């Protein structure tokens, strides 16, 4: 696999995963009509190596929480910290956000500013990982939506993050491509064992992928469901449908 050289001199991608701790988090925006409080006093603890999904309607603030975790936005009040302190965080966006004037490989190279050990081989390996071995030197305009999103995932993985933040990464894709990518994501996750903090509005997606589902609505987390089904999970199995019903009931409780 790719070669990252770590502080202790060892090689290879770390199997280390980070933990996320959110305490008493509040975020509000100033708008023309006044102050809008997106959510307040939110507490979330995510264990290393787990796959946790934040589920909520559009506008519930779930993407905002992700942005706060990544540091792109600052909270109004509250704390976010990680274990270990200096985690690497990879971010996958809803739309791929690739630099249109760079090839796939160069798009991966772009985020390795602080990594002197980066080589082109590494980039190629991550593109191989997401099934894009034939497309190293293609421009985003020459790729399909699903392929572009794969590059986005490869890019995030390539920095060997302890934590992967994913903001509705499959919402813009057709269902068949999305299904493929979900399966690939699970397989990659099981291979590399990173912590994944996933955001979506799709209940089926949440159940299919995660260990835990946090439901966000009305400015707070009102439910925390553990998904105990065994993987791989099929959407038409009895257990799945039963769990799904439970989840939907909880969802409508608010």
């Amino acid at each position: 696999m790719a070669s990252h050289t770590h502080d202790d001199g060892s090689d290879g991608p770390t199997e280390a995963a980070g933990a996320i701790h959110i305490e008493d988090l509040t975020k509000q925006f100033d708008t023309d009509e006044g102050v809008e409080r997106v959510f307040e006093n939110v507490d979330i603890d995510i264990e290393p190596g787990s796959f946790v999904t934040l589920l909520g309607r559009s506008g519930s603030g779930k993407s905002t929480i992700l942005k706060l975790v990544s540091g792109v936005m600052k909270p109004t009040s509250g704390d976010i910290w990680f274990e270990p302190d200096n985690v690497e965080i990879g971010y996958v966006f809803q739309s791929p956000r690739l630099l249109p004037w760079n090839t796939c490989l160069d798009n991966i190279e772009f985020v390795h500013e602080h990594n002197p050990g980066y080589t082109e081989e590494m980039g190629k390996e991550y593109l191989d990982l997401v099934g894009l071995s034939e497309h190293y030197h293609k421009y985003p305009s020459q790729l399909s939506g699903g392929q572009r999103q794969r590059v986005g995932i490869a890019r995030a993985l390539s920095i060997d993050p302890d934590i992967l933040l994913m903001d509705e990464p499959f919402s813009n894709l057709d269902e068949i491509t999305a299904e493929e990518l979900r399966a690939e994501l699970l397989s990659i996750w099981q291979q590399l064992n990173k912590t994944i903090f996933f955001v979506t509005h799709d209940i089926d997606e949440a159940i299919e992928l995660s260990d835990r589902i946090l439901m966000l609505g009305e400015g707070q987390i009102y439910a925390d469901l553990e998904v105990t089904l065994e993987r791989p999970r099929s959407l038409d199995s009895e257990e799945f449908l039963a769990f799904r019903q439970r989840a939907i009931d909880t969802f409508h409780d608010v």
Partner: protein
Amino acid sequence: MSADTTRADLRTRLGDVDVTGWPARVVGVVVFFVGWFAVASVFPNELMPFPVETLEVVYSLFQSGKVVPQVAATLKRIFWGFLASMFLGIQMGVLMGLDQYQRKFITPHIVIGLSAPLIAWSVIATLIFGFSIYAPILATILTAAPFIAITVWKGVEDIDTDLLEMSNSFGISRRRTIFKVVLPSVAPELFTSFRFGLSLSWKIVTITEIFASNSGIGYQIIRAYGFVRFDEAWAWAVIFMGIVLLLEYGLIKPVQWRVLRYRPDTDISFVGGR
């Protein structure tokens, strides 16, 4: 390799030189010379010399060593005028793109700059600076900077903030973000402003040479016209166009191809001048 792939390969490697359409282009060139010949046969010879005669005059001009210093004089003015225009124009454009107030403040000046007749700026610049190199430089600035500003402004406005956010979320430094995200994003507009700034500079400098100098290509053409030595005027025109086309095909088109290469749908062999 199939014939299609070879052709596509060739096109990629040779840039925008479209080798597959060459019969048509040859037709175009032939029509030009035939047309010139035909018109020349109709009009009196002093007004419209035949191609060969013009080339003879061109040759004798080169022989007498007059060409290089005149061309150099014009080029020097263009160089400084264009440089100053780019400098000012880019700054104005960036300001306009980043700040609403600046945009609204600067826009009237842009509009004025673009609406005035070229000779107005030529005359004004000459009356201010007299018979010196500052006249064409000022005239160029007044003409080209507004256009450069408005083009750069468009480019700055169009920067994709999503990409900036992405760069930020990966902890990329400001410097790298500017060089690898901002600059490539505005490169096409920068290039357009370069291209048109240059073409405007040509035009305004040669016009200003009528009033503000006794050297340069524009001056020579007007002088030849004034002395009714039309064959000489034609010769200078040919020299002038020769240089312009050399720049156009030798510099501008290849750079344009490079800058716009990643775009999927631009017909890069025919991005004309606007």
